[in-house]
Every structure is written in structure tokens, then in C-alpha cells.
């Protein structure tokens, strides 16, 4: 039986559909889960509040991509605006717009989940066959250093010169033309995102996917979810069209990603005794911008292919970080780069000579580091959530040290100037200037922080007192409700999260399937 993808404009009247499993969200978690359920012969309905954008829409322009495929038009941020948040909102979720870096979960993180958070049965050996399958299907392969763009090579060279550990990154691509547009949607379908792999596979096998449909509320009777109530959105305006879609499923899986999954539970009155929305982790990032004599053109070429975990573990009480480089397209660069007026214009004119180095900090693993929270802004507003993430001295110390390391790496790689992410940037012309970073202000909005990795908010754990879902991803207080996405992480990872989420969903699908009625 062939399924079908429906878009908001096709849903011209209220509808009620029934199925075995309703999967809310079509990203890394939802895409894999739905595929695995359909493969087992289950009837799956998937809801996605973003649109159905395909390579026809991917014109390699930021002006098209951000409003269409990112949460809050790429404008999501913490409540105080101190941390800007990039997050996907389209069929395929983050996998459609992400930068393809693929890492298995670091073993020490899985051990921490077991030892500190009481997660059972989730170790490297258990996950290995799931990752093997995914790596094969999604063509996850090493991207050798010879194929790295100049932006990545500079990081590689800087790491080599300073004697730090370094590695190349695996990518989920097939026949990749190295255009560098991954964040804007891949125009050649080379990126093996959910959009072009497991979602079409699942549709072919019978799944119904409704795009432009936003799940608003889960209806519960006792310990069971009886319906998912969703608003149909007009694809042209992204506003509710007034039509409703109601899904009556035997089992519901919430896969809206960190931030939106906890928000959906909260809207439904599900708080897990105050745990829903807690332990939100963002991998907070600070960016160091180097200017080189040569053209770097960090907007072209496979975006993220070199990394270093040299500083991931700085000892107890210290925030560690992962080093990588992002692609730098003009709109993102313009809002990220400091300064105003002519000074900012000069920087933008030099964009082809810029290399950006990001320090992705590992949150949630140090004592007392509870991350942020997700809450609701009020019933009236249909899309907005309230994200808070207090940045403390603990974070600022880590950011400051990370910026020092970045500047040294960039000078080692030949930078003639390095700028800090302060709203009035520290301008360094040689390694001797790195000490200036000690005197800069470290406070919200005076030093810019960003996030492209959202995790947590519906933490998995060993006890209903401390977590939202159990070790089978089932919501502790409901029989037929699961959460299958990055929001179940009890901590952040210290590597890019996609492959962990894919693996968790592949593994977790057995539990969701079993809940339908014995089919594993």
C-alpha cells in the first residue's frame, strides 16, 4: 500500500484519522521511528508543522531558506535574547537543514546516562547494530581531509601546529557536490536527510504524512492518550487556516525536538511533576572570527569536516568544548559579526577572507549544571515558547578560555587578525594580544552566544521522580505515549547530536511497536 504526503492547502475541511501510531514531528527522531514502525507493518500517521520543501525550493539563498525552514524564521532565542537558537522546522526537521556531521554517541556519555541518570540498557554495544544499519542506509562516510574546504583545512592546520588532537568528520551524503549550502537545503538531494531517505521509504510503504499541521494538544483519558488535536496551517502565511486535524491512534510518539516536544506536553497539561521542560541543553557556542590574507570562502565546500575534542574534558567543575567550523553565509555572518555602521561594513566586505571557529560547549555533565528550561508563553499565542537559559560564571569562564584557544589556533593557521564575539569586539593582531580577552566583558548580550543543538526538556532516566520518560522512551505517567527525539537526552553530548537521535529512535522503535499490541 502506498501512503501519501498531504500539505496544508489540500486539507480544506476538518478531518479525523485513525491509525496505529501518530508520530508528531518528522526530524531525526520522527523520521527514523516512523520508518521502523511502517516496516513492521503498522499504520503510521506523521504530523509536521513545517512545510513540505524539496529541492525545487532549495535555491541556495538564505532569504528563501530561513523563513521557510527554521523555527521562528531562524529567529528563535532565549527569553533575554542572549542565546540565538537555530532549529529546523520543515519536513525532515533539522536533518533537512543541518550540516551533515555524523558522530556516534561518546561512550562516556552513555555511561553517565546509566550511572548518574539511571538509564537502563542503552550502551554502545546495544546501539552498534542500529548505527551500523543507519550508516549504511544514510551513506554515513568519512570525508577525507583532502576534500576539506579551506575553512576546515585552517582548523586542521592550526590544530596540527599546536599539537592538539584532530579528526575528520563523517557525513551523511551521497554524490555530494560540496556546494556548502547544506544549511539552506541541499539542491542536489545529496544530503541523506530524512526528507530524501526514510520518509519517502515510509510513505512508499503506507505512511500518511501531513505537512503544515501543528499538533496543539494531546487528549488524555486516565493513563492513555486518546487523540492528538492539530491545527492545519496555511502554507502561504503559516497561520492556522481554521481547519483541524484530529488523529486517533493506539500509540502517540512525540518527536517535535527539544523545546517543541516539552511545549506540546505542557500545552496538554502533562508536566511529569514539574520535570517537563527542565534540563534543556543547548551546546552553547561562542564564535571566533579570523581574517586571513588568502580567500577562505567559508560559504563554499562541505561545511563541517574537521573537529577536535582536545578540550572536551577540562576536569571537574569546568565547562569543556568541541571545536569545529561552521559555514558562514552573509545573513548569518552579518547578525553574528560585531560592530555597526562602516566598521561592520568593512568586516562584511572581508567575508571571503574570514574563517569562523566555533567552540561547542558540553553542558549538563558538571555538578549543578542543570541547563535551561522551556515554558509556555500563554495559551493565546499559538507558536511561542519561553526558553530560559541562565548563563553563569561557570559558562563565561569556559567561553573565555575557549575564545583564547580559538584565537591561538587561528593565529597558528596564519590569521592576520582575530575578532571575539563581543558586541564591541576584542581585536587581536597577533598571539600576544590573546590576553586582551581576559579584560573583555562577559555578560548576556555583551558577548554573543548561539546554539544549533537543542537537547533535553523531556529527560530520560531511571525514576519518575527525576525524569520524564523511562528507559523505553515511554512517558512515565501514560501507557501509550512516547517521546522519541533529542529532548530525551539527560545531558548534552559533546558531539553533534543527529546520529545519537537517529540511533535512539531506531533502537526505541521496538518499544513503541510493542506498545501497539505485541508487535516488536
Amino acid at each position, binding site marked *: 500500500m502506498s501512503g501519501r504526503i498531504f500539505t496544508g492547502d489540500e486539507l480544506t475541511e476538518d478531518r479525523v484519522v485513525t491509525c496505529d501510531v501518530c508520530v508528531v514531528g518528522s526530524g531525526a527522531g520522527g523520521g527514523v521511528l516512523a520508518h521502523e514502525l511502517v516496516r513492521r507493518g503498522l499504520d503510521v500517521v506523521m504530523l509536521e508543522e513545517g512545510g513540505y520543501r524539496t529541492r525545487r525550493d*532549495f535555491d*541556495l539563498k538564505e532569504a528563501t531558506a530561513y523563513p521557510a525552514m527554521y523555527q521562528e524564521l531562524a529567529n528563535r532565542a532565549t527569553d533575554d535574547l542572549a542565546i540565538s537558537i537555530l532549529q529546523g522546522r520543515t519536513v525532515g526537521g533539522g536533518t533537512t537543514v543541518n550540516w551533515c556531521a555524523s558522530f556516534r554517541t561518546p561512550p562516556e556519555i552513555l555511561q553517565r546516562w546509566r550511572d548518574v541518570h539511571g538509564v537502563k540498557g542503552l550502551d554502545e554495544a546495544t546501539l552498534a547494530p542500529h548505527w551500523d544499519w543507519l550508516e549504511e542506509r544514510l551513506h554515513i562516510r568519512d570525508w577525507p581531509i583532502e576534500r576539506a574546504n579551506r575553512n576546515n583545512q585552517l582548523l586542521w592546520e592550526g590544530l596540527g601546529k599546536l599539537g592538539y588532537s584532530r579528526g575528520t568528520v563523517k557525513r551523511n551524503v551521497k554524490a555530494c557536490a560540496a556546494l556548502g549550502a547544506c544549511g539552506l537545503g541541499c539542491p542536489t538531494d545529496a544530503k541523506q536527510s530524512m526528507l530524501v531517505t526514510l520518509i519517502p521509504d515510509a510513505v512508499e510503504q503506507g505512511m500518511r504524512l501531513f505537512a503544515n499541521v501543528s499538533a496543539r494538544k494531546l487528549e488524555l483519558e486516565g493513563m492513555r492518550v486518546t487523540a492528538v488535536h492539530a491545527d492545519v496551517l496555511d502554507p502561504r502565511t503559516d497561520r492556522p487556516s481554521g481547519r483541524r486535524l484530529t488523529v486517533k491512534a493506539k500509540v502517540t510518539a512525540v518527536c517535535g525536538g527539544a523545546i517543541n516536544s516539552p511545549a506540546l506536553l505542557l500545552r496538554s497539561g502533562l508536566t511529569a511533576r514539574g520535570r517537563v521542560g527542565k534540563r534543556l541543553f543547548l551546546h552553547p557556542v561562542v564564535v571566533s572570527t579570523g581574517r586571513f590574507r588568502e580567500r577562505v570562502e567559508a560559504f563554499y565546500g562541505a561545511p563541517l569536516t574537521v573537529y577536535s575534542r582536545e578540550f572536551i574534558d577540562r576536569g571537574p567543575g569546568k565547562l569543556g568544548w568541541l571545536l569545529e567550523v561552521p559555514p558562514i553565509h552573509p*545573513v548569518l555572518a*552579518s547578525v553574528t559579526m560585531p560592530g555597526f555602521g562602516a566598521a561592520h561594513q568593512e568586516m562584511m566586505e572581508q567575508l571571503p577572507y574570514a574563517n569562523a571557529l566555533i567552540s561547542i560547549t558540553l553542558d549538563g555533565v558538571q555538578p549543578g549544571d542543570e541547563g535551561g528550561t522551556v515554558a509556555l508563553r500563554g495559551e493565546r499565542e499559538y507558536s511561542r515558547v519561553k526558553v530560559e537559559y541562565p548563563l553563569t560564571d561557570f559558562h563565561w569562564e569556559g567561553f573565555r578560555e575557549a575564545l583564547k584557544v580559538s584565537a591561538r589556533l587561528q593565529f597558528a593557521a596564519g590569521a592576520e587578525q582575530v575578532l571575539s564575539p563581543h558586541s564591541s569586539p576584542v581585536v587581536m593582531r597577533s598571539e600576544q594580544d590573546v590576553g586582551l580577552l581576559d579584560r573583555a566583558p562577559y555578560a548576556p548580550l*555583551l558577548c554573543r552566544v548561539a546554539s544549533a543543538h537543542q537537547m533535553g526538556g523531556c529527560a530520560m532516566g531511571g525514576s519518575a521522580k527525576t525524569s520524564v520518560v523511562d528507559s523505553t522512551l515511554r512517558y512515565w505517567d501514560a501507557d501509550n505515549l512516547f517521546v522519541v527525539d533529542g529532548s530525551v537526552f539527560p545531558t548534552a553530548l559533546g558531539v553533534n547530536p543527529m546520529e545519537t537521535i537517529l540511533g535512539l529512535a531506531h533502537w526505541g522503535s521496538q518499544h513503541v511497536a510493542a506498545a501497539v499490541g505485541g508487535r516488536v
Partner: protein
Amino acid sequence: MNAPRPAAPEALTRRSLLKRGLFGGALLALGGSAVLASRDGLSLPLPPEGLRVLGAREYAALQALARRAFPPRPGWPDADTASVAFTADGLLARGDPAVAKEVKELLGLFDNALAGFLFAGRVTPFSRLSPEAQDAAFEDWRTSRLMLLRTGHHALRTLVYSAYYMHPATAAAAGYLAPEGFHDANAVPWKGEGPRPAPLTQKEGSTP
């Protein structure tokens, strides 16, 4: 043809944010009140296409800020050529209505003579200050001890930058030309009816 609907500023203001800070509620009232503003701000001809969210005064205040952000520079469109405030209006119309409302309030506060007086002892609206005084006034917001004003600075700055860099000429001036020959505007999206199109193969072999 409509102008492209670019990304919204990455960080707009929030209602709760306007209520925060030392003078919170009073500031919000200032921003919202045209009467208190007492002095006229700059007035600019409105775009022929009309505005969807911003009022004439908010539009002029934002464009005044954009003119300071993007002074004339060879090879680059200036703020008026790039229609920054008009593009920003399109962005706000596309986003959450609650955000648009808050940005309007923020712009009201920004160009409000009484607010200017309370913060900086000046009674001229931002949009009528000299260019140097405008730079100084905006810089004051960046470094203010009031979180509210720092956040406002950030929100307005992000709004004008994202609107300006949405313009095709600015991306090119910054060195980014979208690679040609890869995007197929006629590709048919498969929705499950009929056989799935075969994967693209023309670049096969380019991946290791």
C-alpha cells in the same frame, strides 16, 4: 512581484522583556503612547507597495537606523536602495503577530522624545538627531546598564542587518554568489503518487 520574504531578525523583543528592568512598565507605556512622544519624528515617503505591519513613524525610525548601519559605500546598495525598513516590514508580517507588536512598541520607545530625555537627557526623537548623535544614541543602548535597552539594541540591530543582507546585491557584495546549475525550480515534489523519482546521479563520483 513581491520582494523576497527574508528571514526574520534572529532576535526580536519580547513583551516580557519590555516589562523588565528598572522602569519596565513605564517604558512600555512611553513606547506605546504617541501623545507623550510630543515631538514629531522623521517622516519618509511610504513604499508604494504599502506597509503590512509598521506604522509610518516606526517605518521612518527603522529606516533612519538603517541609514546609519549602511552608509553609502562603493559596490554596495545603501539603506534606501536596499529598502531595509520595507524588507523588515515583510519579515515582521511573516512572523508571529505577537513579535511584530512588540517590535512596534520597541520602535515607539526608540524614537520617543520623552524616553530619550529620560535615558540621555535629549528631547529630539532618534530619527531627527544628527547622524553622529544617532550613532551615539544607539551605542548608548548597546552599553546601557539596563538589560532592557541592551536587548532592544540587539533586537533592532538584528532586524536591520538581516533585512539588508537579504537583498541579492548585498550577498554578492559580501562575496557569496549562489552556485548555479544545481537548483531545479521545476523539480516535481513526489507526494507518494506513482513511482518515486530516481535519485540524482549527475554528480555521481564526486563523493568519496
